[in-house]
């Protein structure tokens, strides 16, 4: 019963503190709006500036030798060489040997200065590529289809056009880098299409003006222009939906990012509460009134828990009505919210006990100014984790907010309960671990408390 009274008192105290309210409630709402609008373009264009390169796997589903052989047979067939002089046919065959669609895609395109800044690729066997995608070692798998060489040679060297369907498979958890890869591949397709269209116009114009096979004579020069066309590709990334999952907008992302970051400030606020009580002598008064110190600690734990829940409720409601953020199924969102608040309360309790023991606010200050910012960076509260350098990505598991952020985003994207239960477990375990730690720290403080004895120095003198 005393714990309930302590919690109610603490909540009243926090709610009557305008500075604290501004920090834990108003600030995240303002940042949510600013970042939503400020980063909207970034989410749409994928221009994340100095981001690390995106790893992809390229799978060759074709048989290169067979495709080349087949193309040669096609050139020699009566249907194709009909009406073409021997020299022209020979020249076309030589051009065909020089044109290498695989080299164009891998060497001229993916290795071009512009694309290589963003993408790093490795040619893989199909199964291995899928394994790497599942384990998130790569953000996407690019499938060069069956007959790729043959179809591309036909498209590039003959008046005909075969359909070439380059497929891009992405990991739903890496939606942003997946979008980048898709857009880059689309840029390749567009560039190739314009070259092929140019070639077709040339051939058709030659035929129209009855120039016979002269239209094919410039084919070699035309194809030599492909390399410069590849170099000229500007990567223009569009917003591409990830298959089967809802796309995350900047409003969605930063609503979650700010929520998961700012609930950490509730822990920071809670971290000061015990020492403030000690300094105000109210802690001593509670001890005098027969309140066990673990009871006082429990009061702080539940206070932080409720403050975090209050923050979460306000931010979800605000983002839903003002920014039109769809948070997904209610039950999983509630579960993530409760476990996040629990873990924050655990951290807040440990911070409170440690700050109390230290007798100064250094620890709470370091937590608020250093630890929260670091967690925010590693957890993806500033930028999505999958665009950060891989070293940072590996450290993201250290961030409590990062775990909560991933769980909320999964639900937003349409995943089910089974996908977030692991995150909920981790958050709950973090909360329990820190709660036990806080009890151990405060127990070590002994049964009685030290009061200020500011006059002792005078006594000594």
């Amino acid at each position, binding site marked *: *019963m*005393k714990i309930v*009274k302590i919690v109610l*008192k603490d909540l*009243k*105290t926090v709610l*009557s*503190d305008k500075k604290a309210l501004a920090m834990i409630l108003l600030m995240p709402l303002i940042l949510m709006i600013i970042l939503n609008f400020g980063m909207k373009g970034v989410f749409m264009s994928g221009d994340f500036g100095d981001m690390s390169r995106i790893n992809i796997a390229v799978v060759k589903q074709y048989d290169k030798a067979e495709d080349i052989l087949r193309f040669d047979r096609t050139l020699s067939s009566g249907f194709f060489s009909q009406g073409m002089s021997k020299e022209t046919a020979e020249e076309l065959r030589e051009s065909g040997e020089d044109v290498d669609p695989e080299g164009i895609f891998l060497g001229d395109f993916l290795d071009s200065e512009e694309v290589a800044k963003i993408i790093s690729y490795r040619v893989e066997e199909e199964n291995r590529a899928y394994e790497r995608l599942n384990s998130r070692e790569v953000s996407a798998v690019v499938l060069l289809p069956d007959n790729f060489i043959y179809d591309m040679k036909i498209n590039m060297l003959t008046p005909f056009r075969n359909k070439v369907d380059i497929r891009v498979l992405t990991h739903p958890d890496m939606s942003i880098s997946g979008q980048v890869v898709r857009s880059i591949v689309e840029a390749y397709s567009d560039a190739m299409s314009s070259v092929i269209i140019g070639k077709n116009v040339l051939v058709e114009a030659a035929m129209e003006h009855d120039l016979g096979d002269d239209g094919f004579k410039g084919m070699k020069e035309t194809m030599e222009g492909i390399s410069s066309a590849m170099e000229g590709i500007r990567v223009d990334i569009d917003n591409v939906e990830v298959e089967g999952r809802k796309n995350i907008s900047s409003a969605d992302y930063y609503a979650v990012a700010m929520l998961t970051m700012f609930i950490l400030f509730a822990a920071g606020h809670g971290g000061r509460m015990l020492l403030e009580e000690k300094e*105000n*002598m*109210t802690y*001593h*008064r*509670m*001890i*005098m*009134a*027969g*309140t066990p110190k673990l009871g006082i600690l429990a009061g702080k734990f539940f206070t932080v828990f409720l403050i975090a829940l209050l923050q979460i409720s306000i931010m979800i409601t605000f983002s839903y009505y003002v920014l039109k953020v769809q948070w997904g199924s209610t039950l999983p969102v509630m579960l993530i919210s409760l476990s996040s608040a629990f873990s924050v309360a655990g951290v807040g309790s440990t911070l409170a006990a440690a700050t109390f023991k230290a007798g100064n606010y250094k620890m709470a200050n370091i937590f608020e100014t250093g630890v929260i910012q670091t967690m925010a960076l590693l957890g993806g509260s500033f930028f999505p984790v999958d665009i950060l350098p891989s070293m940072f990505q590996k450290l993201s598991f250290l961030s409590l907010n990062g775990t909560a952020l991933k769980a909320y985003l999964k639900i937003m994207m349409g995943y089910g309960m089974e996908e977030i239960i692991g995150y909920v477990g981790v958050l709950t375990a973090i909360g329990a671990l820190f709660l036990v730690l806080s009890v151990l720290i405060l127990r070590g403080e002994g*049964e*009685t*408390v*030290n*009061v*200020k*004895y500011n*006059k*002792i*120095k*005078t*006594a*000594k*003198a």
Partner: protein
Amino acid sequence: MTLLKVDNLHKNFGSTKAVDGISFRVEKGEIFGLLGPNGAGKSTTISMISTLMPPTKGEILFEGRSILEEPKSIRQKLGVVPQDIALYPTLTGYENLGFWGSMYGLKGAGLRKRMEEVADIIGLNGRLKDRVDKYSGGMKRRLNIGAALLHRPELLIMDEPTVGIDPQSRNHILDTVLELNRQGMTIIYTSHYMEEVEYLCSRICIMDQGRMIASGTQEELVELIKGETLVSLKLDKPGKDILEGLRSVKGVTKAELVLGEIAVTGENVDIILADIIARITEYGRRISSIDVKKPNLEAVFLHLTGKALRD
């Protein structure tokens, strides 16, 4: 009947002896004063009696039971008014009283009734709906006292409850203390204000540098300097050189420089006053005021320690 017995109490902080072997008894129904300058060890003593701090050595018995062995059961019988304002400034007076009452196990109608009674006692009935940070210093002090009264303690321990407040509030608090005592409450009152202790306390323990230097009723303490009178002189140039000259005046037992004034103690000062003035004139000094004081606790403290309570 002895309510509290403190026996050979010590408290060390490292090599510093904050409390050094003090002993006293508090009788049921009395106001017991702990008088001493800042740093004398009063607050440390109070903290040990309040069960907030264990002594390094010694015994504290409440109604014959050791507070070190049974702190939890004894805490309910103690009301402590700390020197600092132990309240929540952003809550109202009413919310503060309600919270502290509930910490002592009061609830419902009983709590509300007791809050009204306490509000009457401390004279804050009309202001309980205001936030504490809007209160004056005196009002905060009164509410600080009120929070310690809610559970009807048998022993009220007040640690310098009038520090930093206006005379009107101070008088109100002193009258409140007397009223509580009239109602049967035993009170330990610590202060470095000699007048307050003289006004309130039936028995007094004088402390300095962690030690008890005298204890007894006011009469018993003043008896220590029986026949001696204190003369306080303000000079234009109060130097140490003149102290030697004054000490050589026949009948003068002490001459000290205290807070810029010359304090002369002696027997029959009325008679030797002329000699004192003459000696000062010999030294070429001009006297701006002379104050002949009756024997009081200030004089006792000066007599015993050679310094003023406010040093």
